């Protein structure tokens, strides 16, 4: 579904992402972890084509990541929801559905609005929403697209506990539907039990990878403890 080979992204002389490679298969959730400044957001933005890569190859469902065809295959949920001040919640969904050529989106959109407790506010402008509500809307807009792969960059920041639980359940549902999910987060306990594979980044490089079981080995530790161990050792 996603093939990243030797991806390098530099900002002038600073190497933000250093020659990383990995693949994500259908029906797989991959967690991207790392301390602040590790290069997680840059990696995601480079994959989805918001940043130009300096070297490497990225294929999304066998299509070049910057191509229009590739864009049809993925959705991106950014850390900070950038929305249009003058559109209501429903109009945002309508806009995205139109832009991605989705015709039968209304029923599913209403269902997601219900699940994220936004149904009563669907006609309100985004200026009247809290940060958490905006984040929920950003997630719903991307769920409506119904792509094959999702890129989540810190999606849980600003969400209330109920919304985090809803999102976690949704991630599992999407995985069961055969979608691929690439998620970057600092809330380690929220993804601990749903990730099939974990990539840990530091200083622009992947320093550890594998399933949670593989990474833990024989140790009886949590993902958080494992993360601290791995990032400290480097």
């Amino acid at each position, binding site marked *: 579904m996603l093939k990243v080979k030797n991806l390098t992204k530099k*900002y002038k002389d600073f190497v933000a992402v250093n020659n990383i490679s990995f693949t994500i298969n259908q029906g797989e959730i991959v967690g991207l972890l790392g301390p602040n400044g590790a290069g997680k957001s840059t990696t995601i*933005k480079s994959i*989805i*084509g*918001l*940043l*130009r890569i300096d070297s490497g190859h990225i294929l999304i469902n066998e299509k070049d990541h*910057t191509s*229009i*065809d*590739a*864009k*049809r295959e993925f959705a*991106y949920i*950014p850390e900070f929801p*950038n929305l*249009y001040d*003058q*559109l209501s919640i429903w*109009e945002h969904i309508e*806009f*995205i559905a*139109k*832009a*991605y*050529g989705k015709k039968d989106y209304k029923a599913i959109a209403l269902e997601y609005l219900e699940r994220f407790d936004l149904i009563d506010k669907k*006609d309100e*402008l985004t200026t009247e929403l809290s940060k958490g509500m905006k984040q929920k809307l950003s997630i719903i807009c991307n769920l409506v697209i119904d792509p094959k792969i999702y890129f989540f960059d810190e999606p849980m920041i600003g969400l209330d506990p109920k919304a985090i639980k809803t999102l976690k359940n949704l991630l599992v549902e999407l995985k069961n539907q055969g979608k691929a999910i690439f998620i970057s987060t600092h809330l380690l306990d929220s993804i601990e039990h749903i990730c099939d594979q974990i990539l840990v980044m530091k200083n622009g490089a992947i320093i550890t990878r594998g399933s949670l079981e593989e990474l833990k080995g024989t140790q009886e530790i949590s993902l958080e403890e494992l993360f601290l161990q791995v990032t400290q050792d480097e």
Partner: protein
Amino acid sequence: MNKLKILINKDIHQVKNYFKGFNKNRKKLIPVAFYILWFYFMFRSQTDSDFYSINYFKNFSFGILTFLLIISFINIYFERTSYFNMADVNLLFTAPIDSKLVLIYAIFKTSWKQMLAALFMFMFLSPSLINAGIHFPQLLIGVLAYALFIFAIEPISFIVGQLGKKYDLKFIISALVAVLLIMISIPMILLKSPIEGIQSEYMNFVPLIGWSRGIFMGMFQINSYFFIYILLMVLFIITINLYIIKTSAHYYEDVITATENKEAYTSKKKQGKASLNIRFNFNKDKDIHIAGDYQGARAFHWKNKLKAIREDFHYLFGVQTLLFLILSVGMVFIKSYRNFEIPYPIMYMSATGIILYIYTLFSLNAGGEDELEMHFFYLIPENNIKKIIALNQLNFQRMAINSIAFFMIPMIIDFRNFINYLLLLLVFNSVYWMVKYAYVLVKSIFRNETDFTFMLPLIKIFQLLLVILPSIIGGIVGAAFSAVTRINPEFIVLTTIFTINLVAVLLILVLSDAIINRIEL
């Protein structure tokens, strides 16, 4: 005293680090060099001119002071006036320091920052002042006038903001503006002339604006009123600060929203993204339905239509169209009423130039399309050319209608020059297209936020050049052709400008795939 020392030390460190930053990032020196050069050329270009009369400075100082007061009211209204930043909120407000000390120090610091800005402004104004016979010691009087004004309006902003938390902010600001307007209009009514009213000594009795203007004009002549104005200003500043110290012990909660807003706005401004669009929201709560199928890139057109319907009378025309029409009617009316000898084509050509100049300056300040800052624009799976056309389609349609509203009256009443007006209309629209597309081009050349933050003045000049270059070439071509042919020079100039703009716009469109792929978020 110890706590004050902590606050002062914090700021000294910040200032030191700011200057150290020049060493770390040399790009920061570019705007500094640019301002020095600008200042140098301003000084070099000073001429002995009668233009800078005493009345000129009376009007100028009155205009500037009124403008500053109105801007501070606007900032209070939008809750953007704050002496603090988010770091203060997170770190200083939670620290064991007396909140009154924090506030007074912040007011003092902000006023001094404003003073530095004022000194900078006076540096630019000084060539004109020197031309008017004002020299260094007298210049200090001007600085004093401005300083007292700033030290007075900063605390007012705070008090009005505080009162706005308890009472209706709109009402308070409206009442203040009304009182100000009444006081300003009294001398104008008494003397039966707005200009004479502004220039009269009566205007100096208007609190703050008038008193400061009275002190400012002391640069030219000092009389007994000069000292009275200084006394009034000083008394006002002392009283208002004492009031703040007495009443504002628990203000932290009240200033957080304004601080967040200010920080967000400042950050946008630094990156050239602050929007100057005035929105009316006529149909804010209306359920809007747009018929038709807008799939793919055309979804942008659908969204813009939706926004336009929400904000204006109709998606194709609105308040701006009305303003263009009123302006055109007003011009014709003034020409007939006052028997102006300027021919209609020259009048409309000048008006077109002024409108485009103002529009370009405003759009330079406002940055560009918000859309280019959003990931949607880049990720929606469509051809970039289609996206960029759909994005601007409605803007272009609306401006075309605005320009028709503006030019249709001269086209009818001065029909023999119909072709010239038609060409003017085309030029008007083509410059508008260039304003929109130049930003896309600039965004792709100066790709990252570091470039935008440090090189904004240069970027804006480059953007301005892109927009006005065709007009300069048009002027040169027109002058050259009219010297050797009998063809109407206006026809040649306008046709050349339109053709160059059209070619440039088409070129940007054709290359938009490559251009947009260069932009990074």
